[in-house]
């Protein structure tokens, strides 16, 4: 019955990449090959998606995009001290660092401690979005705040958490704020990275009783050697690795191709 339901097309498994040795002739870039499609009722096409993740006890690629709530739940950061610092008015805490180092993750994690905090992301080359009041106001890419809006926000006196590429302590102090600054990404230990990445893998686990492939400390050392402290770049790299290896029947190896 299931096979009958598949007639006429519908659920398919698009083979992921050139690297997949099991792939069909669909990837024929630059040739005049005529595509020969597999049988429509092939069980391989129906079952493959579920099987490939299930065989590694995963429900999805652990390094894909997450919802905001998932990011909050999976953040491996200690923001207790930040939450303590900004518990009073006219206090501002700055995260300064390059992209992909965890500024936004830290801000989202603060909402675990302060649910009433508000968060606004200021996009590049676009109008400034609304900034809502809250017991703590968090502003991502705060260096993009136009002066007029910055003055309005600083005049509120509400506790602030800013993620910024530029030190804003001068204007903050002039507005009467006590400022504390933390520079992000200067150090990322092997063990912390292992915790961050394995947390994501465990969150994608299908059966909580069964084991999942894990990233070792040696893997993390290799990742740091290649990507420095850019965790986002590591996750992007690992997404492709998992996608390639999930079709294999062997053990998943995360750094096989890492130079």
């Amino acid at each position: 019955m299931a096979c009958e339901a598949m007639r006429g097309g519908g659920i398919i498994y698009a083979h992921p990449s050139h690297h997949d040795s099991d792939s069909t002739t669909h990837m024929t870039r630059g040739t005049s090959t005529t595509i020969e499609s597999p049988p429509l009722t092939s069980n391989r096409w129906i079952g493959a998606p579920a099987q490939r993740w299930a065989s590694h006890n995963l429900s999805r690629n652990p390094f894909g995009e997450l919802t905001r709530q998932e990011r909050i739940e999976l953040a491996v950061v200690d923001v207790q001290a930040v939450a303590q610092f900004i518990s009073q008015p006219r206090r501002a805490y700055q995260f300064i660092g390059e992209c992909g180092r965890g500024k936004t993750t830290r801000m989202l994690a603060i909402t675990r401690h302060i649910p009433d905090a508000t968060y606004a992301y200021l996009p590049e080359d676009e109008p400034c979005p609304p900034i809502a009041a809250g017991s703590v106001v968090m502003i991502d890419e705060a260096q993009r705040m136009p002066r007029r809006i910055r003055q309005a926000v600083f005049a509120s006196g509400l506790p602030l958490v800013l993620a910024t590429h530029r030190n804003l302590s001068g204007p903050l102090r002039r507005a009467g704020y006590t400022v504390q600054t933390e520079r992000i990404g200067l150090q990322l230990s092997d063990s912390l990275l292992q915790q961050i990445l394995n947390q994501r893998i465990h969150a994608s686990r299908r059966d909580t009783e069964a084991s999942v492939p894990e990233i070792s400390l040696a893997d993390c050392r290799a990742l740091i050697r290649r990507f420095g402290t850019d965790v986002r770049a590591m996750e992007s790299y690992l997404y492709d690795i998992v996608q390639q290896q999930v079709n294999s029947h062997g053990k998943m190896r995360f750094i096989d191709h890492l130079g």
Partner: protein
Amino acid sequence: MAKCDLSITLDEPSGVYPGGGKITGTVKVHADADVKCKGLDVQSVWKTHGRGNVASGTVETVTLFTGQWTAGQSEEYRFELPIAEWPPSYHGNYLNIDHYIEARAKIPWAFDPKASVEFLMQPTCGPEIADAQASVSAKMGMIGWIFTSMIVFMVFGAILAGCAGFFVAGAQNPFIFFIVGGIVTFIGGFIAMKYYLPKFLLGEVHCELKSIRVSPGEQVNGELKLQPRKNVPINGVTMKFVGKEVCISGSGSNRTTHSNTFYETETVLEPAGVLKPGVAKHFPLSVPLPGDVPYSIDLNDNDIKWSVEVRVDIPRWPDWSKSFDITVVPSGKQAVATTPTRTETTVSPPADDESGLTFAETASHIWSSKDDKEQVEMLVDAVNGLNFDIEAFVERRLLYSGEDDPHVYKDGYAVWARYTDPPLPMVLYVPHDLADEFEQAGRDVWSGRGTVVGWDSRHRRLQVKLLSSTSAFPG
């Protein structure tokens, strides 16, 4: 530790379920301790995972049980839930779409136990889905035409103003003529390279497809006609069929587009050789699409796109090429009605305030379409400018309400709020004379009158401009 365990068993665990149908199964509960359950909810949902920002939708939620479980008690609860008609299950490289049955027991003062099981869904709809989308597009067409006209008018005005400024500045400093002349020559050269040089050799080229909508297993048909003006050596005439996953992750400056070509085939219409002058060439375009390819999908930041590109490859000369976007739709062999969200949420635009349409109805329609951006914008457009009696929970005041927001009253401010039922998020623009009333309302329910003025697509909020206390209840 949870006080009870949940598990879900589907009646046909390995089945492929038809979209729009029903799915049945059992939720099993085993309590480790005495548990008071505020609601055992089970819902049918779909969700994307992969490279793109997550998109999801809930089809229906039902509460199976409310009450007390005692330690050691095991219970089973049957459920029957509708399945979404769209999007279909799909598993690719950057994009995956899965359908799930999720169960959750709401336990006071404890973690809510959850269970989830996925199932495969094949759409049973025919091309009606695409038709529905086309009708939405048609309704949006007039708005789009007006918008386009305004842009053309503004661009034309800007060009005129620029020309005037250019001559005034050039009269004062002739060097400006050289700079602008160089830029214009560069742009003109590029356009000539791209569009006119191929035509110089090939003459007028006509290329069209009979239909840009095709189902898996069908053929894309069309024709390419050309009549060269002189001897034209070519590397070939080709037609390329491409299927891509296009996913966007992040937002703003962190926005990254990931593109994965999962299907590509090239048909050689004419091999390398020479096209004779004055001899008309007709190339029938006909490419079969395999029967198992995925449909075109547009889920905000998660798309499956199909295109056909026809190219005349001319050595040492710019190529002539034309690209068509193709929509791959279900074959309609088991055609049924379109998606419920589209059919149930169609609202006839009321003519005026006396239409009898309440805000509760409006909010309900918008809420049920909240995952469909186009549908929501069409609904909001239909009720734009109408006054309603509104009840809202005030959530928080805005320190800054947006630079491009023309609705803020002078000396007024904006608040984020949500409607009582359904909890539709709103932006309320508060006039100065209602400020005190809002301060006193705190986070309680506020009642008053307001005009729908738009939709904040970024934050998915209905924009309502409140009428001041003097005009709220005239008479």
